């Protein structure tokens, strides 16, 4: 699973341009399940298990990552851009980006030596940022990129002990877990969606869930962990190494308490997400059709939405085991 995760993280698939990750996933799962691609580009897969449960169970992970989209080109050949999904200015400036997976650029910044007064102590305005691809004219720039092209911030995949440092852990971790579940034998049938456009408003999951019409949904995600220096215990949300984080409430969803309790009593290492913040595809999924009983199983990630996110492989393993346990328990009507 970690080999797959590494390959997934190194692919570039900002929202709206999920093709690279989609193609890779199809290559991985095609011999193990039925699947189709819907109008928006979601992969909707069906895994035939040994038994067919009465309830329809859906597992979801999103394929897209946060990124940038080119909006215009200056006369000197610098590219102006908008963000795709939420990225802080501080984790964009002085970073390398890759546009269309093949043109390297840099989000430049006036040297601190030339800043006057408080200028060097404040973040530049997001709309003053630009990408420098090393060309000298607008024409040269437009021979390499077009308006509407997307980019991601570069970040290599590094393994350090039990920790992984990479871009796009949100939500390639979910994708890697879901691929593993599809590739192995299952006791019960389940549906899997690899969804598009989560980072721009949970849009792919909305339509994919409508298509599947599940009774239960398990969202596989990455979530903010703030267990870092100088953060008080009650604001840490969740902790790396303490297992998968299970949500009771976030800004998009009040979760099904039965599923939440089922997860926490599983005996598999897991923890409550202890802060009402963020959101994920559950927000769209639990409101699909007449409503879907939904649980979110998240892997704690430090520095999420930056190109240097950090996760613990023990938590990835917990999330995988917990997802498997939940399929089994839901199918066997333990909730």
């Amino acid at each position: 699973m970690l080999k797959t995760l590494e390959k997934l993280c190194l692919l570039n698939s900002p929202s709206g341009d999920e093709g690279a990750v989609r193609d890779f996933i199809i290559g991985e799962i095609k011999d193990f399940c039925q699947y189709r691609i819907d109008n928006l580009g979601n992969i909707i897969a069906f895994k035939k298990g040994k038994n067919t449960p009465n309830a329809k169970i859906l597992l979801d992970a999103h394929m897209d990552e946060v990124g940038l989209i080119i909006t215009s080109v200056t006369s000197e050949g610098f590219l102006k851009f908008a963000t795709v999904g939420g990225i802080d200015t501080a984790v964009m400036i002085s970073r390398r980006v890759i546009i269309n997976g093949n043109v390297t650029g840099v989000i430049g910044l006036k040297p601190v030596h030339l800043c006057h007064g408080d200028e060097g102590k404040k973040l530049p305005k997001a709309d003053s940022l630009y990408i420098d691809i090393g060309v000298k004219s607008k024409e040269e720039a437009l021979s390499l990129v077009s308006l509407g092209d997307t980019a991601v911030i570069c970040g290599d995949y590094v393994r350090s002990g039990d920790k992984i440092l990479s871009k796009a852990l949100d939500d390639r971790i979910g994708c890697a877990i879901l691929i593993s579940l599809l590739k192995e034998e299952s006791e019960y049938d389940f549906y899997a969606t690899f969804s598009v456009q989560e980072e721009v408003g949970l849009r792919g999951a909305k339509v994919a869930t409508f298509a599947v019409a599940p009774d239960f949904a398990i969202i596989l995600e990455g979530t903010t962990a703030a267990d870092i220096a100088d953060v008080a215990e009650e604001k840490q949300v969740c902790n790396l190494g303490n297992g998968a984080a299970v949500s009771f409430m976030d800004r998009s969803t009040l979760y099904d308490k039965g599923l939440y309790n089922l997860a926490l009593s599983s005996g598999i290492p897991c923890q409550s997400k202890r802060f009402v913040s963020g959101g994920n595809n559950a927000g769209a999924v639990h409101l699909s059709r007449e409503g879907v009983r939904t649980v979110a199983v998240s892997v704690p990630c430090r520095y999420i939405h930056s190109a240097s996110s950090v996760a613990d492989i023990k938590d990835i393993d917990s999330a995988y085991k917990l997802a498997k346990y939940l399929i089994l328990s839901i199918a066997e009507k333990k909730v």
Partner: protein
Amino acid sequence: MDIKNTLFDLSAACSLGNITEARDLAFDILKDFTDECEKTDNLTVIGTIKGESDYTLMLAAHIDEIGFTVTDIDDKGFLTVAKCGGIDLRTLPAKRVTVHGKEKVAGVFCSTPPHLAEGEGSFEDIGKFKIDTLLGEKATDIIAVGDFVTFEGAPCLLQGSLVCGKSFDDRAGVVTLLKLAEELKGERLPITVKIVLTDMEELGVRGAVTSCFKVNPDEAIAIDVSFGNAPDVSPEECGKLGEGAMIGFAPVLDKAISKKLDKIARENSILCQKEVMGGRTGTDADALSVSREGVRTGVVSIPLRNMHTDTEILDITDIESVCELLKKYILEGGVLNA
């Protein structure tokens, strides 16, 4: 010697404090192109190319880079650091670094999670910027207070002759001098040239003080980087990438040297641009010029964008221009024959 490949090798190597990878690499290259080459106790490299006279021109580029030193390690593997050189704190959140402990350790500066963000954040106190070593409580087994931290980031090609990487300030100057030494090999030089790779420039132009005292030159030129054009930099404060050597003119510099460099560039159609500064230059030249009884000093710079970040950008052709200019200047006897 291929300029781009050598620049990339030097950029990927680190030189800060007792970490001397870049210095050692530069020494190994320089010794083949010089009559004598030594590493001094104060982490400097001095290579001598003997000429027909003892009149000595010192060419200085600094080998050190900006970074950090560890001042505290907590029990969860987070480091508190102090700055070594002019760091732009705004660029640090989620930035990757290498911690030079007993072994090299990958680290990342913490970034504030969105639910804890208060306004835009404060970018004044380096003490608030912790490094996550990913090691947890094991950090103290590998890392000690006083260890150095450098930016992480392999150099890469952009379009044409533009390249991006860390520590081009001043490995660009270093590679210029290495290439120059290769070019001068076999030439009959009217004057003696000492190529000096100085240390601790980023800590306030310190290595140049002692190395210039030791070399005791008749004349000196510092080779460094300077501000390159970018959308958020005013045109009068910068040079342009790809438009050649930036020849320094400043009150602290020797006017005859600046003028002769400019004249040679124009006579030989070497791309150049003037860089006029109001006082000091912010380079090794500031120390070279006041060494011992005073040394006539010039500055030639390579335009560079995003200075003091791990995404510095320069044009390889500007390094070629500086190298060609210095070669002609030496063959014409430096300022001695001005």
